[in-house]
């Protein structure tokens, strides 16, 4: 089944992800699904697509590690750097909220706001993970642009 995000849901999560950037005093915030598809990002940057794919890969590997350690899953991962660190939180099972921050803010603050925002996003993300195009955008048709080559 194809997952979809409607304009309304997109607008809502964009606002929440953008607010998190300010609250956690972060450099970048990114919400993606566990397949690495970006739903909202602040600020928009070219490297976000790769960042989301790597975070999704990292979470998948972490899940396997959890299972092998006798846990069902690890809900968050933290990578600490000299100047820049990264905190990622699993939300509503199928999504990842990623926060990149400098040493000018603290992990405690980042964790506090990320988990608060994760709770706020929960119901919308559960809707996103279960809806399909025909049920929420019934009039939509998709058509190829008729080009001979895609690339």
């Amino acid at each position, binding site marked *: 089944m*194809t997952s979809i995000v409607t304009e309304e849901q997109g607008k809502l999560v964009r606002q929440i992800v953008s607010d998190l950037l300010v609250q956690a005093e972060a450099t970048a915030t990114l919400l993606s699904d566990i397949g690495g598809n970006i739903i909202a990002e602040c600020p928009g940057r*070219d490297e976000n697509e790769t960042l989301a794919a790597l975070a999704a*890969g990292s979470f998948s590997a972490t899940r396997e590690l959890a299972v092998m350690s006798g846990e069902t899953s690890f809900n968050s991962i933290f990578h600490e750097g000299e100047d820049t660190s990264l905190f990622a939180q699993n939300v509503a099972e199928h999504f990842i909220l990623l926060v990149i921050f400098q040493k000018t803010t603290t992990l405690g603050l980042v964790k506090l706001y990320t988990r608060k925002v994760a709770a706020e996003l929960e119901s919308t993300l559960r809707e996103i993970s279960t809806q399909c195009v025909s049920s929420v955008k019934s009039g939509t048709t*998709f058509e190829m642009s008729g080009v001979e080559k895609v690339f």
Partner: protein
Amino acid sequence: MSFVNFDKKEINFKIVYYGAPLCGKTTNLAHLHNAMPESAKGELTMLSTQQDRTLYFDFLPLRSTAIKGFVSRFQLYTVPGQPIYNKTRRIVLTGADGVVFVADSQWSQMPSNAESLKDLRNNLASHNRSLNEIPYVFQLNKRDLDDIAPVPYLEFLLNHEGLKAQCFESVAVNGDGVTTTLNMICKMVMADFIMSHEMEVSVEKETSHA
């Protein structure tokens, strides 16, 4: 699985390059990264060992306007070919919308090709999926080498079950056949997406009329 974002007017597709160790999966992505215009590509990311063997995956995001009104984003992944990384291959295969199976044409690599195809079928089965239900193509690589199997032999070995898939000859190190393979799998993935959506809509209509 494909992902439609109406807010960003984007559709994402995931394509996985699968195949035996050293068959040319990473070389395909490296060539595509060099060949694509800046406007169509993102960064090529390789998660490799110190010996330049793929450890987790390679990742190349591409974009086009092949579906009207949307930006189509194609996320290309490779899997690590070495046998010990089977769990990683299974993870990377999750949610794939299409598969390119890269076969090494050298006679000596026939057992590895057959083993890798079996491994692909098993890993898809672990996700409750099968090759019959997702778009896939074969790329017969290294056609420039001396000791290679003829195309009909490779087709017989790899492509004799169920619906026959399309095969493309290639020399990935110099780019021959690489973009042709990509264009075909992208078209198949988009056609599959559009058809699935149309079926979904007709089921929805039937249900609401009942």
